[in-house]
């Protein structure tokens, strides 16, 4: 095809392609702030030339496709970074809450232990003084109450995490079912050769949200995508999603895929962070508190039974604290002072009221290695250090993970983000091209008039 009509049709391709290009630009500008939106660029090519005699003549321009500019590797990295980041931040929030209980060196369990042994020291110059004896009981009560509070707070926090786990699992299920249904829509469009661009964006956004909750790996297949957790549990396979369930097990909510318990195998997302704190950090702190409470109670009770009380006649001392469970489990939560009569403190080593000999046995517990091989105050101070380190390390890891995620998102923005300057410059280009093509059309029109009217003045025609 050639001649004036050929020229006209070439100009028309220019008009229509420029218009479509402007449409793409307009869509990019409209979505400049849409989360997860990937900028789209028109891909154009010159039309196949035709042979006219010995000449090869162009046939204009063809819009091949509107292409979303995304880097799949980068998206995978962002998902992985999101999983790690969410796990760390979820752990950190919980650890920061835990450590507030251990924040003060002048109050709380540590100070209570010091104060209790100090009350014994104050009793030693005047062992039959009931006011001083009452101070010992009061100090013991405060110690027991603070152990109870600390243990209960940890338990409450564990329960809150449990609820959070159940909610997160239902969010995971909501997201996987959405991802599966979007996957269906994508394959429907692909089957009729249409551009699923915005749906892919939507799916990626959903997968990123899912990465905030649980570790997922995206495996592209012929039948859409497959999402699986690190241990291989399939969450989505093409247009099908598989819901996770929760079930109480050992006092906490476990996560099941079918009949498989995947609780301890999660490696990323806020669920992994929550479970790490709930199943490792809190039990470890609780058990340290239990050991300390049981060690103190058992040893002080034993020391008290070595002496004599202030009753008339003096009797051999009994327990100060209610005996703690043999396993030690729950010792901190249930620690109680079992005596209310201050004369039952067995200060005397021989039954005489003025003897303070057995107070030395009671005081010696302050320097005795308890079950865990440490003196009471060292055991507590180590626990404070342990809680502080866990929080500080997680905090540092979370900080660097925030930076990594931010950098990856920057990188992704530099590939996929809409730049208004770029769009404006494209718009100028497309507009100029459109105007030029339109001028060609009107020129051809004049030429045609000249040809059809055989030299008559075009203006008169």
């Amino acid at each position, binding site marked *: 095809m050639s001649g004036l009509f050929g020229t006209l049709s070439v100009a028309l391709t220019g008009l229509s392609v420029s218009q479509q290009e402007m449409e793409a630009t307009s869509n990019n500008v409209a979505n400049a702030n849409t989360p997860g939106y990937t900028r789209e660029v028109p891909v154009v090519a010159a039309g196949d030339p035709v042979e006219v005699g010995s000449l090869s003549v162009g046939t204009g321009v063809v819009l091949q496709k509107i292409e979303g500019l995304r880097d799949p590797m980068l998206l995978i990295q962002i998902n992985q970074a999101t999983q790690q980041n969410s796990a760390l931040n979820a752990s950190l929030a919980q650890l920061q809450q835990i450590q507030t209980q251990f924040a003060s060196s002048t109050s709380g369990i540590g100070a209570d232990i010091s104060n209790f042994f100090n009350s014994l020291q104050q009793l030693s110059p005047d062992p039959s003084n009931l006011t001083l004896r009452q101070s010992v009981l009061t100090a013991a009560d405060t110690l027991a109450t603070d152990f109870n509070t600390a243990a209960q707070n940890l338990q409450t926090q564990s329960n809150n995490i449990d609820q959070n786990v159940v909610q997160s699992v239902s969010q995971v299920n909501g997201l996987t079912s959405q991802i599966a249904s979007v996957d269906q829509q994508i394959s429907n469009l692909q089957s009729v050769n249409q551009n699923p661009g915005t749906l892919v964006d939507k799916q990626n956004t959903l997968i990123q949200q899912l990465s905030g909750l649980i570790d997922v790996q995206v495996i592209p297949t012929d039948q859409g995508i497959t999402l699986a957790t690190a241990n291989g549990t399939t969450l989505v396979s093409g247009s099908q999603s598989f819901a996770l369930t929760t079930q109480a097990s050992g006092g906490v909510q476990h996560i099941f895929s079918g009949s498989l318990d995947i609780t301890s195998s999660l490696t990323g997302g806020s669920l992994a962070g929550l479970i790490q704190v709930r199943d490792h950090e809190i039990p470890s702190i609780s058990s340290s508190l239990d050991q300390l409470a049981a060690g103190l109670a058992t040893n002080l009770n034993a020391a008290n039974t070595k002496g004599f009380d202030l009753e008339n006649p003096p009797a051999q001392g009994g327990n100060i604290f209610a005996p703690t469970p043999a396993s030690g489990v729950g010792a901190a939560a249930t620690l109680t002072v079992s005596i209310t009569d201050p004369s039952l403190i067995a200060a005397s080593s021989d039954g005489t009221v003025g003897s303070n000999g057995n107070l030395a046995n009671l005081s010696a517990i302050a320097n005795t290695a308890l079950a865990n091989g440490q003196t009471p105050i060292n055991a507590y101070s180590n626990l404070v250090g342990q809680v502080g380190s866990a929080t*500080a390390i997680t905090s540092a890891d979370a900080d660097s993970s925030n930076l990594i995620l931010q950098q990856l998102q920057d990188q992704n923005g*530099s590939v996929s983000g809409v730049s208004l300057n770029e769009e404006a410059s494209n718009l100028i280009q497309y507009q100029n091209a459109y105007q030029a093509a339109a001028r060609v059309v009107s020129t051809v029109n004049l030429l045609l008039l000249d040809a059809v009217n055989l030299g008559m003045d075009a203006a008169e025609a």
Partner: protein
Amino acid sequence: MRVNPNPMPDLLAALNQTQLEEQQAELQISTGKSVNQPSDNPTAAALLVENNDEATFNSGYLQSMSAVQGQLSAADSTLSSVTTALQQALSLGVEAGGGTLSDSDRAAIAVQLQGIQSQLVSLANTTYQGNYLFAGTDTNTAPFVVDNTVPSGVGYVGNTDVNHVSAGSGYKLAVNLPGSQLFSATGNDVFLALNNLIQSVQTNTGIGAAVNSVSAASSYLSAQRVFYGNAMDQVESQTTYLNTAQLQISQQQNTLGGVDMAAAASNLAQAQTDSQAALAAIGKFSQNNLFDYLT
């Protein structure tokens, strides 16, 4: 290279960071502590627990030292009165043995000596804050009772136990001497010596020997009393030591968890400047783009 057209999240993260630093500096200044959470410095947080334990024990030792000091000085001044009474008995004994006195004069002296004997029993039964000072550890029963079935006329019903009070880590101080060791030691029994003197004066036989016995018993008691003087000296020097230690402990606490105010104030100023810079950057960020210039 294409840059990320939307730097807003980065700017917000930077702003967040500067505000966090601002808050931390403010917290440090308002609390005067550099360790407000264990994670601020885990090692220091752990050491602060032990530091507080040391501080509690140290002030506890100081407090019990002052209680012990009260007991010791009460015992010591009682023994001082005992010594005075014995000196009086000695002069009376010497007077009675002078050979120029009539029977009725000696009888009067014997009555005076009996008075001293009861005064001594009463001194030996002195209480401090309701506790008998010289009863060993049997402190709620008067340790010395008048008992005419024994030669000294005074029986000891206390025990021979000694209490110890911790004066510091691993440092124990004995805080009493049993009355039996002070007043009725074999060979130096104050009451026996005095009783013998009374009988010698009454019968006017062997007064000289009896006076010597009283003198010996009195010297023995004075020698025993040195225990209280020593103990009070120890309490005093230990109190000085504990006060110095208290200072060191609180200095250590400050090193571990205190705030260098000058540094904290300069951190705060820096964080505020950073924060304002971040705000300005966000406020000024690219309010213009190429679209503004299209006509």
